[in-house]
């Protein structure tokens, strides 16, 4: 399915392509002098959320490492060559996960976010019309984050604001209203992506021991965000809010819909603003990228779990470049689905969601 002709001519929109700032020096041209001095005179090398250990197999597919080309995802050439041209991608959504949100110095976090966005404009979005960007913000300070959204939001090359799934408090909380307000004002989606380092554990019961445990367990954090956004009324306060869940899997969603719908029946008097069944809000406001699929090896079961979403609109294709989830193009889309649904997942759901 890698070539357009293998897809029966169907277009492809890739909703998770990582472009990476690998050295703080990269940002110096876009940072005020004060922070350049700070970087040069301190041991600050940029935020380190340790989302992906450097040597972990999931961080980089081995064949993306090209001698002398720099880390995969660090230059436009690589993304053009290894993703856009290879897959004949119509649009690629850049998901820069520079963790400005994890810098304890909020002013520095905000300055870094501004610099990253300027770098994205100059090095990625202006030269390559197939790409769309995600605005990096320092979400630990929603007021500063909203200012950054104001600054970048009118540029049509940016289609969403990206936030780490591991937040200080769940995103349905009122403290994030300035971010959502600014996003909605500029018709931007919110992308919630794997990772983050808010300072507290990634599980409800303390710190995971291994990376595999942390990575696998992250689907639970995505679940907590969905519950919060619905229960705390974010979709009631911002009826235009659109949220993409990126690199968190999707097969857990049907069970969460059933659970929250059932709890809502018993507990809805606690949250009177939630007027409809929670699953209705999810289907209307939330989209999920497909990588990693986390599905059964049984084709019938794959079709069942996708059917249980009770929606054709929710899934969006992604490669999660340069992360290593698959080796062959076929493995990138393991579901045998009807042509019309394939078409929606390949491109049309994302086209609608990101207004492309």
């Amino acid at each position, binding site marked *: 399915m890698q070539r357009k002709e293998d897809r029966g001519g169907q277009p492809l929109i890739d909703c998770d392509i990582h472009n990476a700032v690998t050295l703080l020096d990269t940002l110096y041209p876009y940072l005020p002098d004060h922070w350049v001095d700070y970087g040069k005179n301190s041991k600050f090398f940029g935020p380190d959320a340790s989302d992906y250990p450097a040597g972990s197999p999931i961080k980089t597919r081995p064949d993306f490492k090209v001698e002398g080309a720099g880390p995969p995802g660090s230059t436009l050439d690589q993304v053009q060559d290894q993703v856009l041209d290879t897959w004949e991608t119509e649009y690629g959504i850049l998901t820069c996960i520079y963790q400005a949100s994890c810098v304890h110095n909020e002013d520095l976090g905000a300055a870094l976010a501004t610099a990253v966005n300027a770098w994205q404009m100059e090095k990625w979005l202006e030269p390559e019309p197939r790409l769309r960007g995600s605005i990096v913000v320092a979400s630990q300070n929603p007021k500063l984050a909203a200012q950054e959204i104001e600054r970048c939001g009118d540029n049509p090359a940016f289609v969403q604001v990206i936030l780490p799934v591991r937040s200080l408090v769940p995103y349905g909380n009122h403290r994030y209203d300035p971010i959502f307000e600014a996003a909605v004002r500029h018709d931007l989606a919110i992308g919630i992506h794997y990772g983050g380092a808010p300072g507290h554990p990634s599980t409800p019961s303390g710190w995971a021991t291994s990376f595999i445990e942390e990575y696998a367990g992250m689907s639970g954090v995505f679940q907590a965000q969905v519950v919060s956004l619905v229960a705390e009324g974010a979709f009631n306060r911002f009826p235009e809010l659109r949220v993409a869940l990126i690199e968190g899997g999707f097969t857990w969603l049907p069970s969460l819909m059933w*659970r929250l719908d059932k709890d809502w029946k018993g507990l809805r*008097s606690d949250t009177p603003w939630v007027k409809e069944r929670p699953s209705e809000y999810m289907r209307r406001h939330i989209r999920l990228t497909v990588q990693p699929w986390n599905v059964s090896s049984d084709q019938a079961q794959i079709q069942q779990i996708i059917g249980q979403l009770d929606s054709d609109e929710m899934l969006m294709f992604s490669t999660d470049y340069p992360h290593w989830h698959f080796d062959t193009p076929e493995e990138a889309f393991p579901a045998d689905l009807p042509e019309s649904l394939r078409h929606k997942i390949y491109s049309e759901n994302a086209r609608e969601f990101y207004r492309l």
Partner: protein
Amino acid sequence: MSTFAEPIVAEQGTPKKTAIIDTDVHIVMPDSDTLLKYLPKQWHRHHEISGARGHVKSGYPRLHKMRLDAFPPTGKAPGTDLAFLQHQLLDEWDIDYGMLTPLTGAGGQVNLEYGAAQALAINDWQAEEWVALEPRLKGSILVPYEDGDLTAREIDRMGDHPDFVQVLLASRTKSPLGHRKYWKMYEAAERHELPIAIHFGGRGGGPITGAGWPSHYIEDHTGVSQALQNHIASLVYEGVFERFPTLKIVMIEGGFAWLRPLMWRLDECWRRLGEEVPHVQRPPSEYVREHIWISTQPVEEPPDPAYFEQLLDQMDMNDRVMFATDYPHWDFDAPSQALPRGLNAGLREAIMSENARKLYRLD
């Protein structure tokens, strides 16, 4: 195999009665005097001046916590009165056995020694005032689970009591349950051939989600399954089931539909990242199917009953799912209504009673 079938009708024309075992029955001490009756003397003064102190006690206010008809004539809290519980739960529903799951916070005490004393008191109270008087009720051993030595000591003290059938933990512990700090507990549980049950609740001190503190009780209630999911990931990836090959884990009051996607995810992550945990020898889903039992309440209610059938077929754990009411809490599942109509008779019987009968070695 089809999970659903036409109802099986006995030859005489009367439907076969399904036996019921309830794997989640809450009791609670009626008052402080009862605790002092069982609490070791040296802790009485501590109890008076400090008392129970866990992390973040405020929790989430909720409009309803108990079934409103579950308050006994004594005027005390639901779950404090044996005669009333016998009448309202065991007799009314003709229940063969009920597993007692007292939630006292003994394991969540910041003072571990006091937690151990409290656990001992609750266990002796269960032994004397509940299971000794009512053979249909079976006890759970409470433990100060954040300390391995104190926990092993309490399991060794109670473990051979014939009417105590499991060790009981709350789901929100200080660390994920695969962590080596809990291994002495697993050693002791294996020694006495007792399953470890993990029940909704607990306060480990940190936020109850990996994304920080949510605001409402509905998030707390829905979120318990996330704690259970992380515990399974931890138990599997830390190699607990390789080190303790006869260990049995029971998950209570977290539902079960999340288990199947979790197994897919754990398997997929293991295929790519398994080198980091070389002690994990087999696909995670195999350990889950061998070592995990799960209770039904609050039972899954998908919008289409066919999804319930798909769910059970995909889980492929029909011998591991066990019925529970969660009496006397607000979200009680009635035995007559918990499972969808049309579930085939053999599977209904397995879930309503026989899986628990086998696990807990009941008659």
